[in-house]
Structure formats: structure tokens, C-alpha cells
């Protein structure tokens, strides 16, 4: 969790449609902004692409989780059937891999799904008890409903309160607000 800070977190602009948000975000990214983020009430993949989010780590986590599930279940079945508790089932060899496939498959899916869900939550920085954006009044009323937000953060070297506000105003948003920590 980040250290508590004093001062300004950034400047946030509210847009009416995802199209406007994506165009503004893309222009800001092209102009050299990097400490920035988009906030939307539902996933807008193009907004993520516009601020340079080409890849994320969720697919990798899913793959690793899936492989873990696969290896874990297949080894468990092999160990149980050949070493721990070998049974004669219809005269088949104790190492009967075709019979192991279905539980192995189920565990692969289960581990991959859980890794994707929990990995996504962890990569999003959740659970989180505090976020400065909730200090912005327009954000509180619109972010979960039907408004689209672009925040340029104070940590970016290009940041200057007056210039950044003027820059965001140039995209004709509904409103531009300073965000305090």
C-alpha cells in the first residue's frame, strides 16, 4: 500500500462518452504523458490501449495456474494409483493415463480460472482501503454510472497544475477537477 501523502494527486476530467475519453487519452499519451489512468463504469479495452496498456500479466498468471493444476492432479492420480494404493481395476495397468485425463482437465480449468480471477484482483491493487480519486466530487457521482474519466497524475514530470488543467479543458470535457490526497 502506498505511503500516505500530502498535496495534489492529479487532475481529473469527466467525459460523456467512451469515444471522447479514448481520443483524449490517446492524444495525452502521444503528447508524452505516462503517469495517467482511465476510469470507466465498464471495461473499455480501447481506453487501456490508448494509454499504452498493450499487455497485462493476467494471461501469464492464468497459464501458470493452469499448468500447476494439470501437474498437481496428474501427479496425484499417478501417485495414488501406482504407489500409494494400487488397485486392480478390470485387469488394467495401474498407470492408466486415459482415466486420469478428466480430473486433470478439471483441475487445469479450476486453477486457471481461480488464478485469472484472483490474479486480476491482485494486479488491480485490490483490496485497497483508500484511493484519492474518491475525493473528487464528479468522480464519486459518475464513475460507477455513465461517465468516463481521464486522470493525469502529479507524479508525471510534465505535470503543472494550471497547464494540465488548461490542457484537459482543451478536450471539452464535462468538468475538470483537482484531486487531493
Amino acid at each position, binding site marked *: 500500500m502506498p505511503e500516505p501523502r500530502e498535496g495534489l494527486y492529479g487532475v481529473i476530467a469527466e467525459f*460523456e*462518452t*467512451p*469515444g*471522447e475519453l*479514448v481520443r483524449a487519452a490517446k492524444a495525452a499519451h502521444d503528447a508524452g504523458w505516462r503517469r495517467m489512468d482511465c476510469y470507466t463504469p465498464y471495461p*473499455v*479495452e*480501447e*481506453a487501456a490501449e490508448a494509454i499504452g496498456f498493450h499487455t497485462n500479466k493476467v*494471461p501469464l498468471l492464468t*497459464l501458470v495456474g493452469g499448468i500447476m493444476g494439470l501437474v498437481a492432479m496428474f501427479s496425484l492420480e499417478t501417485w495414488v494409483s501406482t504407489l500409494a494404493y494400487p488397485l486392480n481395476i*478390470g485387469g*488394467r495397468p495401474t498407470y492408466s493415463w*486415459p*482415466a486420469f*485425463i*478428466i480430473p486433470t482437465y478439471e483441475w487445469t480449468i479450476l486453477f486457471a480460472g481461480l488464478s485469472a480471477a484472483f490474479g486480476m484482483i491482485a494486479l488491480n491493487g485490490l483490496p485497497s482501503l483508500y484511493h484519492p480519486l474518491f475525493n473528487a466530487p464528479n468522480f464519486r457521482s459518475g464513475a460507477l454510472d455513465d461517465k468516463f474519466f481521464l486522470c493525469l497524475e502529479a507524479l508525471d514530470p510534465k505535470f503543472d497544475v494550471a497547464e494540465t488543467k488548461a490542457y484537459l479543458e482543451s478536450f471539452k470535457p464535462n468538468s475538470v477537477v483537482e484531486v487531493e490526497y
Partner: protein
Amino acid sequence: MTHAPHAKTLPADLSAPAFVNTWRARALMVAVLFSVTAVVLAIAEKSWDHFFRAWIVGLMLTFGFTCGGMALLMVQHVSGGKWGLLLRRPLEAMSRCLPLVFAYWVVLAAMVKSLYQWAAFPTEELAKAAVVAGKLPEAAVHAIVWKAPMLNVQAFWGSGILCFAIWGFYTWRLNSLSLQRDADKQGNTPIWIKRMENLSGFGLVVYALTMTAMVIYWVMSLDVTWSSSVYGLLFLVGQGYQTLALSLITVISLSKAEPFKTVLRTTEQHDLGKFTFAFVMLNIYLAFSQFLIIWSGNQPEEIHWYMNRFNGGWAIIITLDFLFHWLIPFSLLLSRDIKRNKKRLIRVAQWMIFAKAFDLFWLVEPNFNDAARNLHFSLGILEYIAVPVAMVSLWVAFYCTQLKSRPLVATNDPHLAEILEPEHAHA
């Protein structure tokens, strides 16, 4: 909405681009080249046996594209969706290749006595004599007698012609109604949607039943003793697999020029990639369940079918089949980037069609006495390359002609406006 001004407009000319003619010319050249090769191979081998075995592979591939295309066309009429609008005209073009497939089938039907044991030895006396001569396993005699009411030459011809007539009827209705729908005024669109839905919903049930009957006749009955209740479904899903691969190749290749340059968005390409991925998964699911059930049962009536396909060198082929048919397309299609990349997705789709042909080789060849549990090379094995390539190439030429015969985009559809919007404007 403020994004409306960013919408694209559909080009005035919706006909197929000129390069489809080049495709057709190339396909015809390949067809001629491989037909000659196939005939030369048969003469060199001094036997036409493998030529007609490979003919079954070619027939199943082209039948899969044609009637699989018709089935997918009916699915998109029932389900709706932007992917369906995108594929509608290419799928209609595939379904109109039915006369060519019928011609291929007539050749098979004429050769029925040299390919199928039940046709070569139709009575108990003949079958017993064949067992003595070593041409037939003993278990086949009972199966031939028991299954004679279904597996006889008259029933083969009769049911085949009936099924082709039914498929022809649906092809005709789906294609002619689609043109009438585009000519009609926009206000009637909801009526047309319902009408196509009603035709297609029932049609899908009819198709699933008729195609199951036909794959039993054409492929499963090559081994007269064996049966599997999932067989029809396995081929139905296989048709979805190959038809979606061909659809991807078609729309991505067409997108080099108008009108598909305008209508093919990355979103729908991605959706089609995901749909294809689902079929890759369903295909292995059914194939593996069939294997697992028969392997677990370990019954002498069934297990020999797999023994014929695992032992005597065939293990190499089934391992490769597993890699080609499932593992490679599955691993590649997992990737979001590959599904959104035109060049790479087209490579995966081409690979999938090759893999389907490879799978059919494994299904067909071990049915015959000389090849069961005995994978061996002869010139005849090369027929499995020459004949299907020639048949599919001729089919592709036919398909290109059909693509050219109509506008490539269906216009009387509510999804058309959506497909012309920029991709991030789904608010």
C-alpha cells in the same frame, strides 16, 4: 450520440474484388496438376484401391465445407450477431457448391462394391467364403447379416439421394430468400429475421439427423462390425471446425480490398477466432470421450477399432494427429494477439484445414485389411495427398465462382449499422 459522425460508409460496389478470379485460376491449376498426379500414382501402383479410399477423404472435406457452411449459415440465422452478418454471403457461397459434392458422391456410390465389405459380400454365403479366403474377419459375417436392412447398395443410393435432395432444398431456400430479403424494404426486416429463423431452426435438426445417417454410410460402415453413437456429432463438430477455418481465411483474404476492407473489424475477427477456439475444444472433447468410453469398456466388439488405429505403427499417426488437430491450434488460439492479427490467424486457419485432412486419413485408411494395425508406405499412401488436394482445389474454384455471383455483404440487416461504427464506440 456524438460518435455517429465517425461511422464509416459502405462502398457502393459490394461485388467480390477482381483477385477472386486469380484465386480461381490458381485453384484450377492446382486441381489439374494434382488430378494428373493422382492418376499417375494409380497407374504406377497398378491399383486404384487407394485412389478411391482417398476419394472418401476428399468427399468428406468438401462435404464438410459445403454442408458445414450451410449448417453454420443456419446457426447464424438462429443466433444473430455481427459475426453472422459478416459470414453470411461467404457461407451461402459455400452451400451453393452442393452440386459438385453430389457429383463427388456419385463417384463414391458407383465404387461402393470395391470399398465397403457389406457391399462386396452382401449375403451370409459370400461373407463366409470371404472369411475362408482371408478377406474378411470372422466377426464381420454376423454384422453383415444383422445390418443388411440398412447396409445394402439400394439403401446406400436411396438414402444418399434423399439426403442430397433435402440439403438441396435448404440450400435453395436459404439462398433465394436471402436475395429477396435484401431486395425488400427496411421496414420488413423483423419479418425476414423471423422467417429465416424458423427455416433454420428446423433445418438444423434435419441436418444433424441426415448428416449423421450419411457419415454412418460413407465412413463408419467401412468397418462393418463397429459402431459409435457419437460418430455423427463428431463429424458435425468437425465440419464446424473446418468451415470456421475456411471462413476466417475467406474474410481475412477478402479484407485486402473493398467491401471487406470496410466491414471486417478487429472485434469481429477476434470473435470468430474465439468461436473457432470453442470448436477446437469441442472437437477434442468428443473425440476423447469416444476413446475413453471404449477404452474403459474394453469390449471385444468395439476395442478393435482403436487397436487397428494404435498398433503396428499407427501410434505415430495418432500422436501427430493429437498434436496437429488439437494441441497446436489450441495453444495458438489461446493467444489474444494471434486472434487479432490477420496474418497469423490465417496461418492457424490453414493449419487447421490440413489437420482435418490428416485426421480423416487416420479415420479412413486403417479400415482396410492391408492397413489395419500395419502402417506401411506404398505409392498408394501418396494418393491421400493427391486426391484430396485435387478435389478440394476444384471445390475452391467452384466456391470462388459462387462468391463472385452475388454482392459480398448482406445489407438488409440491423447489424450493418453497428459493424460500420468505429470499434471503441460501443456506448
